[in-house]
């Protein structure tokens, strides 16, 4: 069950606060950047600077420097603290009164601005009002069944709303216009702008302490019956399954993707992704747990601790090390929205590849294949597990750090022959599937040669298919294997070696020219000396592999020119040219070809080519129409966005339609991007007319 997601690190020790004064306790904490504030029951506020330090052994510690402490002079506990860094203010609740103090020297503001009669308050972290130099507070008033909304400025406060609740509220959270409230018998959500209220679920807050916690846009976490942590949106819907805490949970906080909770003896960590309990940390006498900008801070009566999340990579490695593949994948997928796309993709692929090897090690081949292909595994990582399969010329080295712990197949299977056979069968299927896909690009030789060896060894019926089809098997490596596994397929070996002997020299030559990019000469050898037209065609294909289409087109035109060279014209070459055109119509520039072919060739002869070329041209025309259409619609979307920002449109009976100049009698109208208003029927008519005229004139020119 357990994964190490967090570490508890001490931050403020007893000696820095009350020393040995037994009756002095921590009442509340606030953390804002590096500033840590502690409020005590003897009316003091302490200000510390909290700095992360990493020791040589990668152990995280905190260095704490005391900046200030201040007595507020009320002999009452400081019950809540909230920093408003944009205002440089600390909002303090003490003796049922909210006051503002300077964040740095803790002096009360000159104006003496106060809110009296406050039971508890909350800061709106997602206010609708966008003024950055104000803070919106939701306040539970000492007045029975009353909630108030205040705006807090640098040195003044202003009430903006007061609303009555059906029962006495005891806890509150704010997001946008939505107040999430714990009432005596239930939780509700109230839109303070419209007054609309939505019941969530019953909860007896007189029997158990409620928890109301904003966890994101319009979503809250609430303590539910039976120790449940319930999620609820502002619409009153649960979008995630609940997490299961203990009955006596004291506090909860969010550190994505985890929900952490505090009870009498433990900190529990649940994943919001699968609702499972992931970690339990013993923590005695805890009484405060809060998250501040993603940092979770805990306090006992005397000391402060930070719950430090371990890096995602570490957590993933831990999960994989304990073979918990699914959880690791869920965790990394869940982290997608929190890390940059590029970084995510790299991490995601790597996790999938590692997961794939774990599944492979457990002989869960279906799952392994899925992980490998989603993780875009370099197939050579897998091939290299099988001794001698990679060609001797292969330059491949396994990735570092390694993706798995296996030396080779013998190590993985402990020499179990049956398992080895299963693994080989898996590799055959896997390579067969990927050899013609993008994943194999760049190392087709390695893949095909490995496949050939596996086929040969297993007497596989597909061996012949592989050899006679287009393949990248390396001759040097393949021939000995075919010989070694003397079997039916000795024939194949002959096919290969026979081909080599006769044609060896010329072929080498052609390949060399090819490497020098002197395709003209290479093709000349293939066509005139080897008279291997298929090879010439293949040559064009693989030399243009991975290049753009125009490169391939150039090669094919070159080959066509070789065939149609007037100096050596003969019937065989003409037929080869016709075949080439007819079977590769889509590659050629049809216009150029048509200029080139002699007038005496019949249409009949070139019919497949012409059909193919037409189709290709048609296709590219339609594709560009699609692209054009998409671009147009994108443009329209932007125009729509732009219009939305323009704001209000005024329409009155006095205004006339710019097209027909009659007035508007109904509220519906069409607004052109330039702000001109017209009747819907005028716009429709105009649309029809302009469609038939195929052009668009600005309606503003119309008058």
């Amino acid at each position: 069950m357990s994964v190490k997601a967090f570490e508890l690190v001490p931050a403020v020790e007893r000696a820095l606060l009350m020393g040995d004064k037994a009756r002095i306790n921590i009442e509340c904490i606030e953390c804002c950047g590096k500033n840590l504030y502690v409020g005590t029951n003897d009316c003091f506020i302490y200000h510390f600077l909290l700095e992360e330090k990493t020791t040589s052994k990668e152990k995280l510690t905190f260095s704490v420097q005391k900046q200030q402490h201040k007595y507020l002079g009320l002999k009452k506990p400081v019950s809540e603290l909230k920093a408003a860094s944009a205002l440089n203010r600390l909002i303090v609740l003490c003796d049922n009164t909210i006051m503002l103090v300077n964040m740095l020297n803790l002096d009360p503001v000159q104006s003496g601005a106060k809110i009296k009669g406050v039971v508890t308050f909350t800061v709106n972290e997602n206010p609708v009002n966008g003024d950055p130099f104000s803070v919106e507070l939701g306040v539970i008033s000492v007045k029975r069944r009353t909630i108030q909304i205040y705006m807090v400025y640098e040195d003044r406060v202003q009430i903006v709303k007061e609303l009555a609740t059906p029962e006495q509220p005891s806890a509150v959270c704010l997001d946008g216009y939505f107040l999430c409230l714990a009432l005596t018998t239930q939780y509700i959500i109230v839109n303070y702008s419209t007054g609309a209220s939505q019941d969530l679920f019953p909860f007896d807050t007189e029997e158990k302490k409620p928890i109301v916690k904003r966890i994101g846009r319009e979503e809250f976490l609430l303590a539910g019956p039976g120790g449940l942590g319930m999620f609820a949106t502002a619409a009153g819907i649960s979008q995630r399954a609940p997490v299961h805490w203990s009955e006596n949970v004291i506090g909860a906080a969010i550190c994505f993707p985890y929900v952490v909770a505090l009870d009498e003896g433990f900190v529990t960590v649940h994943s919001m992704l699968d609702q499972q309990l992931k970690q339990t940390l013993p923590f005695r006498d805890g009484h405060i747990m809060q998250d501040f900008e993603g940092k979770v801070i805990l306090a006992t009566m005397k000391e402060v601790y930070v719950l430090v999340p371990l890096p995602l990579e570490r957590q993933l490695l831990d999960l994989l090390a304990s073979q918990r593949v699914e959880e690791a994948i869920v965790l990394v997928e869940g982290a997608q929205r929190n890390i940059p796309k590029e970084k995510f993709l790299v991490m995601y692929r790597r996790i999938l590849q590692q997961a794939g090897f774990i599944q492979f090690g457990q002989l869960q081949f279906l799952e392994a294949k899925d992980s490998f292909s989603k993780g875009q595994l370099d197939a050579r990582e897998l091939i290299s597990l099988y001794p001698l399969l990679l060609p001797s010329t292969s330059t491949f080295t396994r990735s570092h750090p390694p993706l798995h712990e296996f030396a080779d197949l013998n190590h993985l299977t402990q020499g179990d022959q049956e398992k080895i056979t299963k693994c080989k069968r898996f590799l055959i299927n896997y390579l067969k599937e990927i050899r013609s896909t993008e994943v194999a690009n760049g190392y087709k030789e390695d893949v095909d040669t490995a496949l050939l060896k596996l086929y040969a060894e297993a007497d596989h019926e597909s061996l012949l298919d592989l050899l006679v089809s287009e393949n990248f098997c390396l001759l040097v490596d393949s021939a000995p294997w075919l010989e070694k596994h003397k079997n039916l397929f000795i024939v194949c070996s002959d096919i290969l070696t026979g081909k080599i002997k006769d044609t060896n020299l010329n072929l080498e030559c052609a390949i060399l020219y090819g490497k020098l990019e002197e395709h003209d000469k290479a093709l000349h050898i293939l066509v005139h000396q080897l008279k291997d037209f298929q090879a010439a065609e293949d040559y064009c294909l693989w030399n243009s592999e991975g290049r753009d289409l125009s490169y391939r087109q150039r090669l094919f035109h070159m080959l066509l020119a070789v065939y149609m060279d007037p100096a050596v014209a003969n019937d065989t070459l003409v037929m080869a040219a016709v075949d080439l055109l007819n079977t590769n119509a889509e590659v050629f520039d049809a216009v150029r070809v048509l200029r080139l072919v002699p007038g005496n060739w019949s249409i009949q002869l070139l019919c497949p080519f012409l059909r193919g070329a037409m189709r290709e041209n048609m296709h590219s025309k339609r594709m560009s129409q699609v692209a054009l259409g998409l671009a147009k619609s994108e443009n329209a979307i932007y125009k729509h966005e732009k219009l939305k920002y323009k704001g209000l449109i005024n329409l009155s009976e006095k205004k006339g339609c710019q097209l027909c100049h009659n007035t508007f009698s109904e509220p519906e109208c069409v607004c052109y991007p330039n702000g001109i208003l017209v009747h819907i029927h005028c716009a429709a008519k105009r649309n029809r007319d302009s469609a038939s005229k195929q052009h668009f004139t600005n309606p503003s020119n119309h008058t």
Partner: protein
Amino acid sequence: MKPDVKLVLLGDMNVGKTSLLHRYTERKFTNTISTIGGAFFLKQWGPHNISIWDTAGREQFHGLGSMYCRGADAVILTYDVTNWQSLAELEDRFLAVTDTAKPDCIFAIVGNKADLTDDCALFKEAEGDESPVQTKGSPRLRKQVHTEDAVALYKRILKYKMLEEKDCLPAEKMCFETSAKTGYNVDTLFESLFDMVVPVILKNRNEGFSQTVDLTEYNDGKRTRPGCCV
């Protein structure tokens, strides 16, 4: 991924809600523990993401039901065929919980544990050649709830919702008997519900779209009326 269909399983504790969902999603029967709070499952159905909420039957969590049902497109009311009380609870305790579901929410009534009372339920659907699933040690029990009882309840539900029977899906199509243990009728239950609920949400969605004015298709009211000269 935002689900576009919401389906909720309701019913007394121990009738087998979690087991039904498990059988459908995991293709096996496992001894589940009493559900705490609720659980959530996503199913891809064609282009749609269907969220299925498995709720806790225990009285303790009853208060959460209304929230889980809010905005539901379909509700599966589950009872145990060997336990009359479990059917009665549906009407007494769970029907009111569905008040928060969508107005056009569809209801299915499902009697689970049919393998304990009916021989036909010893076989998994569509796999008739399979030998009966091992049910040794589970003696035949008396069937306390018959399909007619479920049909009658379905009709009472429509009345409660003030719906006309003729406007709604017929009771025979909405009452199922299943066995999570053998798999009997489980796929049929979920998949026929998916098939029934998807057209409903598509219809709602299309009605939402009709607020768009298509200028190329726009016809003036006057133009569409057949004139005397036509």
